[in-house]
């Protein structure tokens, strides 16, 4: 029997990278290789899908996943035992059609995603190849621009209804000759920034957990600054003080929907006190792209404003990423592509369900000249580095120091002279096309 055939599938409830319950699936092959993956559902409680993803009830604040665990053990697992873990598309096809077409809804998107990704990892280990190579084959040689978080937001100026910790800002090191050079420079800037913040506000950055890839965000609370413009100034000064002007830039996840009122069409308490209408919001983003070293802006406008995102992609010159805008949904990406909406798609590998669906979605973006920016918010953890290299992503969301930084350094070393640093050409936007001579 082939060593890559699936021998066993198990699952359990664990803590996710966000500290909430998550499902963890393990796939074991005949030759003893294991692939273990956790998935935290990105679906909010209350939608139709959730009944199967979460247990509800009082324990674990309703977020327990014992039913999803049972579905893996009793339904998904038995259906794929005996299949070849190295043949991702075949396994995914079986899972996605278990008992009819809406398998994800019935079994739980989190259960499906965890097993699918565990199959991918078990397949790589069984074949004895690194995960990035199993994903991208010999083409997988690109290390992304190095980025790391620096500021998180909050309801800083009132009116941000569900602001969570948005907007989040990151440093992006792009004009360097290798990933390691970029990462060490990034480290200098990040440390300078953290010392600045510690002295001025007495706050510390968020930890980088060994299992979670983003970190470094300093939670600047209400009352600490007059407006975010003050923060942009401080960040810019830090970059310049370290001598990395035009080599290290800024990235922001605006998450503007959290500040948008659909009734009035106004953005409230975003970057500063008060309201802005759509045109004023567009002007604000243009100002950020021109007057400050922003190189990547994510979800700058509300998720249904395809035209506005098209305008920004055309005129801001920088990388415009759609997260809520595209929702990892192929239909929305297709619509965006036709309209020239944004120029990069945010990828949460485990959000869409199976690995095959993620890869199809990436293919769609690339085939239309769009970038893809991976983000590890659904339980991908440091595997996000392998996904990033596997799909030759030019940029990644804030995952390049700490544990993921080490994984990238390791991959860079492994690829040796074949390793390619995305650099300037890894960032979408007219400004960088000119600089990279495209």
């Amino acid at each position, binding site marked *: 029997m082939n060593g890559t055939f699936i021998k066993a599938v198990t699952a*359990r409830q*664990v*803590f996710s*990278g*966000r*500290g909430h319950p998550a499902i*963890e699936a393990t796939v074991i092959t005949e030759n003893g290789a294991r692939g273990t993956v956790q998935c935290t559902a990105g679906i909010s409680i209350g939608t139709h899908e959730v009944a199967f993803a979460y247990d509800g009830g009082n*324990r*674990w*604040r309703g977020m327990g996943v014992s039913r999803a665990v049972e579905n893996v053990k009793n339904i998904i697992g038995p259906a794929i035992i005996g299949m070849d873990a190295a043949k991702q598309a075949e396994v995914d096809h079986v899972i996605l059609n278990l008992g009819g077409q809406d398998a994800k809804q019935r079994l739980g998107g989190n259960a499906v995603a965890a097993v699918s990704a565990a199959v991918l990892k078990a397949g790589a280990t069984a074949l004895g190849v690194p995960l990035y190579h199993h994903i991208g084959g010999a083409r997988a040689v690109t290390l992304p621009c190095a980025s790391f978080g620096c500021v998180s937001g*909050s*309801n*800083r100026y009132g009116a941000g209804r569900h602001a*969570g*910790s948005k907007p989040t800002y990151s440093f992006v090191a792009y004009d360097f000759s290798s990933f390691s050079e970029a*990462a*060490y420079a990034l*480290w*200098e800037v*990040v*440390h300078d920034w*953290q010392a600045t913040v*510690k*002295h001025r*506000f*007495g*706050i*510390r*950055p*968020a*930890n*980088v*957990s*060994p*299992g*979670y890839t983003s*970190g*470094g*965000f300093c*939670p*600047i*609370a*209400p*009352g*600490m600054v007059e407006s975010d413009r003050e923060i942009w100034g401080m960040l810019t000064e830090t970059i310049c003080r370290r001598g990395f002007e035009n080599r290290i830039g800024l990235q922001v996840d605006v998450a503007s929907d959290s500040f948008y009122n659909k009734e009035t069409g106004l953005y409230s308490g975003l970057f500063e006190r008060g309201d802005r209408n759509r045109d004023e919001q567009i002007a604000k983003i243009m100002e950020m792209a021109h007057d400050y070293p922003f190189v990547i802006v994510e979800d700058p406008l509300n998720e249904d404003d395809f035209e506005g995102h098209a305008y920004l992609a055309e005129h801001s010159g920088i990388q415009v990423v759609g997260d809520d805008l595209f929702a990892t949904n192929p239909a929305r990406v297709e619509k965006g592509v036709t309209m020239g909406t944004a120029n990069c798609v945010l990828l949460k590998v485990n959000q869409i369900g199976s690995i095959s669906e993620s890869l199809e979605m990436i293919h769609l973006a690339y085939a239309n000249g769009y970038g893809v920016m991976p983000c590890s918010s659904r339980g991908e953890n440091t595997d996000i580095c392998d996904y990033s290299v596997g799909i030759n992503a030019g940029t990644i969301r804030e995952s390049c*120091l*700490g*544990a993921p*930084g*080490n994984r990238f*350094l*390791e991959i860079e*070393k492994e690829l040796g002279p074949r390793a390619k640093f995305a650099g300037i050409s890894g960032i979408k936007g007219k400004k960088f096309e000119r600089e990279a001579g495209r």
Partner: protein
Amino acid sequence: MKGSIIRSVDAMAGFADNGQASVIATVVTENGAVGQAACCVGASVGTNEAPYLFDGGEAMGGKGVFKAAESIKNILGPALIGQDAACQSRCDEIMLGFDKAAVGANAMAALSCAVLKAGANAMNIPLYRHLGGSRAFSMPLPEYLGASGSVRYGGSENAGYQPNYYFIAYDFPSYKEATEALWEVLMNWEDYIRDFLGVKMTYTTGIAIPKGCLENDEQLWQMMTRIINESGYSGRIGLHVDMAAGCFYDPETKLYNGLFSAEPKNREQMIELVVKMAEEYPFVVIEDPLQDQDFEGFVEITRRTGIQILGDDLYATDLERLKKGIKMGAGNAVRIDVAHIGTIAEAAEAAQYAYEHNFGLYGGAERGEGWSSCDYAVGFNCAIVQNMGLYFGANRLLEIETEIGERALFPGKRGIWGKRFQLR
């Protein structure tokens, strides 16, 4: 040839979870097993710790570790090739033949742990069992960081982010049940902090109270106590504080500056304050309440409080200091951290000495080893392990608890040293 023989050793200068530079060692055995381990500088560094090797100069604030990586690649590594990774003490003995300061205790610690992991993997047994054998069946108490400090009250620039406050779950029948209760408390604490500060902080990213939000830390103690009580876990979940008092201590004036409040405190005032914490608040573990030369002060606090008084910077996992402290009764528990001393063999020796003298063992976890600290803690039979009560550390410990099975021993409140919690 035996599969566990070391075939190659490599190293790199990487990053640690605490934001510092970290030296990472990789050991590969003849049968292809890999062991990888890291060592980085801690958030607060005690004066008694083994000497680390840093690059110096401008880059990375002088704390780069390219030199430490080179010493693994060119000095320590070559000496281990051909040795049996399964024979930890022999490998450590060879490394200890080198001058620790010259090769770097950080290089040594990373390599020693990498050997241990490669040995476990080569024999295909779990890391905790390779370290602790069949005796490794006891689970540590779960704790998790609820609040960390900063330069909240001025006074000290060396304090890192101390003091650190942990919620610790002790009066439960199993690790699994303790961890679920602990999670509930941390969730309630997150909610409370969001309302209090107007900014969302989660336990996974750390909860740090900025300047100007508190008059003194006693307010924080009241808040944390309230959350424990309102969650219904009074007397079952308590508090652990790592004061790292040495970082706030000025040897010139003999005063503690900026610790818990803006007012400087002398030694007697600190002792009275710590006694009050143990009497009026649910503190069950207090770590480094005084600077790390004040053995007598530790003795007095241990005698007067009845809770666990833990020596971290006081002992720095150093056997000679530990012998002195145990004889005097300075504290009743010691933090075991390979990164403080250099090798697994030395840490094991300190752990064994403490164990034999009825001193509590606390597994340290901040120097780049991530959740491998869980395996070290179980392997050394530590009664508590730092910050592994939720999240990825808990994922590993839950796995270990399941693996050990029905005979897994959870210490419950006996896991807290101090006469209040012990049979005698």
